């Protein structure tokens, strides 16, 4: 289980994420390899390298997991084998 606020790095690229919504499983990968706090660097799987972008929020179809990309990378994010997609957030006017 990964708690909100947990920060993880990609093993294959520069990407870093922070968990927003609690994830039941630890099966979160980037570029085909498990993300970790200090992962050992390795080569990414060529078909899992669609990139992830800083500031975007990523969810699975059921929205049982949500992560925030805090550093862009070349790898793409997967949770329990399912590729995560960017979440559409409502744009609000600036209030501060």
């Amino acid at each position, binding site marked *: 289980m990964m708690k*909100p*606020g947990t*920060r993880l790095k990609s093993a294959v690229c520069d990407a870093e994420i922070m968990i927003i919504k609690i994830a039941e499983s630890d099966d979160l990968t980037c570029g085909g390899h498990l993300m970790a706090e200090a992962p050992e660097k390795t080569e990414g799987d060529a078909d899992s390298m669609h990139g992830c972008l800083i500031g975007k929020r990523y969810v699975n179809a059921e929205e049982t997991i949500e992560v925030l990309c805090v550093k862009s990378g070349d790898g793409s994010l997967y949770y329990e084998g399912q590729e995560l997609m960017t979440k559409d957030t409502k744009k609000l*006017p*600036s*209030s*501060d």
Partner: protein
Amino acid sequence: MNIALLLQMAAEACPDRCALTHDGRHYTFSELYNGAERAAHHFLAAEVKFVALMDVSSPAVPIALMGAAMAGVPYAPINYRLSEAQLKPLLDRISPAYLITGEEVPERQGWVVQSSEEFMNIVLAGENPDLTWHDDPSAVAVQLFTSGTTGEPKAALLRHEHLVSYILGSVEFMGAGEDEAALVSVPPYHIAGISAVMSNIYACRHIVQLPNFDPEIWLALCAEESVTSAFVVPTMLSRIIESLQQSAMESEALASLRSIAYGGGKMPVPVIENALALLPGVNFTNAYGLTETSSTITLLDPDDHRAALEQSDGPISARLGSVGRPLPAVEIEIRDEGGAVMPPLQSGEIYVRGPQVSGEYEGRSVLDDAGWFPTRDAGYVDEEGYLFLSGRADDVIVRGGENISPGEIEDLLHQHGAVSDVAAVGVPSEEWGETIALAVVTKAGQIITEDGLRELIRQHLRSSRVPEMIHFVSELPYNETGKLLRREVRQWFATEAI
């Protein structure tokens, strides 16, 4: 989860973009980030319990806020206008602290005291320390002293998870274009001053600081720095509008200004109507929030303003006096005194729930079992969920965005030998939102003058506590349980309210 992440991401995505302008000097996002890292190193070395800032806005504000977050030390901004007697107990409560201030303070053991300039000198240069962030979402990020109903300041605690939830839920990362600039004129010890720093940094929007609000300088800075957005309290807006109407300033000078957000007190409808008419190209947003809710919880957006203006009558037109609808992650309920949830259009106390809501003071949470926070504000929602405020559930006077406890003034005057009884109440004012009115009962055979009372309050409290109106009366109205009927006192002044 740590609020310093907001600055880290901005520095990662646009390191060389201008992040802040103060007194004509510019700072990039990477300069702020590196400054915060060095600040964190100094805070840790000082082994203090708090990082406190008691000064006007300067680049030291975002750097100390973010540096304290990295170091895992709570940040406690303090009002620099407090009298010595008010300040001492607050400093006792944050001891030992790393205090950044321009004021003279008595020496205290274990404290580091620096001016904003000295602090900036040591954080803007030198090696970057090897720093591991303190990363606990439930750690206290900010402790803000609010003026409570009893007059004794309460320390509201905002944890990293509350503040980060607020920003992630309301601001799009790098949502600002490179040409955007936000004029920030709210003081750094106000929740709006904290949220302005965090929101604009996460949006990667250039902040232009105006340390001491003045309508002429505000307008001049807008033109000079091509300001595109600003947050103001109602009093500031009314003075800006006044100044704009009086000055020969061409409206092209404000051509860059696209949006104004306002909040921090009740906006008189004539003021916002005037503003909308005078600045037709500007998008207005009304934001309602409290310290304990990490700033904004409801918004009346620009489309709501326009829709309200187009109607001359009816519920949509009335929304110009509303604070709008809750943010996506925020829920609002109106409850009566017994706790029952009220239907639309019925007044009661406003309760709020959501991940940004802290509702916690030093060691004490006031959230109920289901996580709802009683705001102590009274109001109702219309059929479409728009929230209307009808005043404080308690009797705090909100003058120009500043909360003033009547007890503070009454306590002082009760000490006056010639005063038998006294009540301070807030009465509506177009300029200040609310202004202070005083009803005084004089002891038999004694004489007090209005000027004498005003001078006493000015000396012991602050000029903002000096009443606009004073009535001498034979007695004050109480109910059978001895509770002062403030509503009746307010009515005495209602006819001459300005």
